[in-house]
């Protein structure tokens, strides 16, 4: 029977992290970018939980993960509000077209 070990979690976490980064830098739509950020945060969460579970560090990791989930929600809310605001002003949420502030 295949036993699921720390390595598996870490691999998942790294994949998620990479996907998050990839999303952030390639997606044009601001919402997709925000989703990328969520992926990054969640990859960290997986790490916390996995380390706590396999590293025998007590429950701290899980608690941290909870904190982060809450925080991610708050961040998403604010970010979406901002995106909405952008959409209202310029009717466009393509991040690579929002570049009036530049050198």
């Amino acid at each position, binding site marked *: 029977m295949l036993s699921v070990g720390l390595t598996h979690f870490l691999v998942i976490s790294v994949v998620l992290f990479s996907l998050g980064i990839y999303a952030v830098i390639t997606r044009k739509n601001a919402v997709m970018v925000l989703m990328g950020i969520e992926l990054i945060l969640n990859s960290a969460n997986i790490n916390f939980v996995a380390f706590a579970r396999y590293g025998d560090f007590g429950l701290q990791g899980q608690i941290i993960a909870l904190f982060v989930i809450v925080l991610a929600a708050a961040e998403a809310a604010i970010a979406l509000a901002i995106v909405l605001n952008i959409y209202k002003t310029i009717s466009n949420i393509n991040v690579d077209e929002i570049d009036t*502030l530049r050198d």
Partner: protein
Amino acid sequence: MNLEHIISDLVFVKPELAISVTLVLIVLVDLIFKEHKKVLPYISILGLLFTTIFVIEQFDISGHAFKTSAGAGLVTVDNFGSFFKIIVLFASFVVIFFSINSSEIELVKDRHGEYYTLLFGMILGMFMMSSSADLIVLYLSIELLSLSSYILVGMLKDTIRNSEASLKYVIYGGVSSGIMLFGISLIYGITGSTNLYDINTIIQGQNFPFLIFLLSGLFVLVGLGFKISAAPFHFWTPDVYEGAPIPITAYLSVASKAAGFVVLIRFVKITFIDGVDEHGNWQLLSIIDWQSIIILLSILTMTLGNFAALWQDNLKRMLAYSTIAHAGYMLLGLAVMSEEGIMAIMVYFIAYALMNLGAFLVVMIVANKIGSEEIDDYKGLGKSMPFLGILLAIFLVSLIGVPPTAGFIAKVMLFISLVDANLITLAIIALLNTVVSLYYYIRVLKNLYLIKVEEEKPDIPVSFANGILLVILAAPILIFGIYFTPIINFAKESATILGF
């Protein structure tokens, strides 16, 4: 850890409590007395006053609070943190006065409650940052700061550049803190702890996979570098500073940067320290070569900030680059890796807070009147604003670092620490950077005074309150430039970080 301990430890977070109470108060007042938004700033100031008293009380008290293990807790109270809290408080005072007079903030009259609430959210975040000793508390407080500032940057919803700034800020900030969190998770995985002191104890004398440590260290650095806008993590700075309302720009450039520095210094020192010798030099554990990293970053930061500032036409944007450059100078103090360097950073922060806030205030007063921040629009204004002109000159000269200004003293202390640590090449690079910075600062003065224009320029009056505020900012620059014993003493008393 039981409840009694928690309650008794609340003494250590009195300032934070005061802030929280004020925050709640503002929300309540805003909800209840809808028509009396004018009181909000005064309530804020009152709250800040109380906070100030508590912070001053906390001086010379040091200790760990909310202990999670034998020696360390979530929160550390020491003079080092208190010093930066004072800086943050000072900036907050000034910025609230800014806000009262800002025509930009005046545009969103109906949302003043929100504005001040979020401002206090930022303050709370920064206070927590200043005293956090745990990576998670640290992360959460950074997020608190960031989330509040995302909104404040986009406060004026109707202007494009405002919204754009906040969007960029939130995406950039989100990714940075995400990366940082990932780094924290790795550290947690390796050491099993998130407390800085504990981590230090754990990694001492043990062999850890250094590459992973380096990776996680650098990941954390991304988040902190973002906060202090150190190159190459600075890219958001010019855009956001330009787009944000001037009071917020000023606030970000001083307070949030101060908080970022506290965290960075604490993180580097507490986590990786091996010992401090009698000269105050740090011996770091040989896990990550922090000194080289910081040196590289500081050179990059100041050079980039200064050189890019040469090209700016927008004064706010130019000042944004200038704050990047100054962050680079201050990183030099950390690069020294000694108590002396930390002291130099603190002295620098005193001067920096004064001169940078002053410069932004002048920019705001002028922008209120002529509606522009373009440097070219300053041509010939020297005559129409004699008082403002002289003060702007003082601020800019101090930013260049020419005596007799506090900016000069700050630079001298920095160079003293550099030379003491034999980092002479670094000192010379920094000095050459100073010369470059002359170009763009002096360009403003040149436009003000040297260029004679045909057209009549409108007189730019300064309200009495603003005048007082400006003098409060400018006078210490000159006084400390000549008699700097107090600031050095202050910095010296505060330079010791709890634990070492």
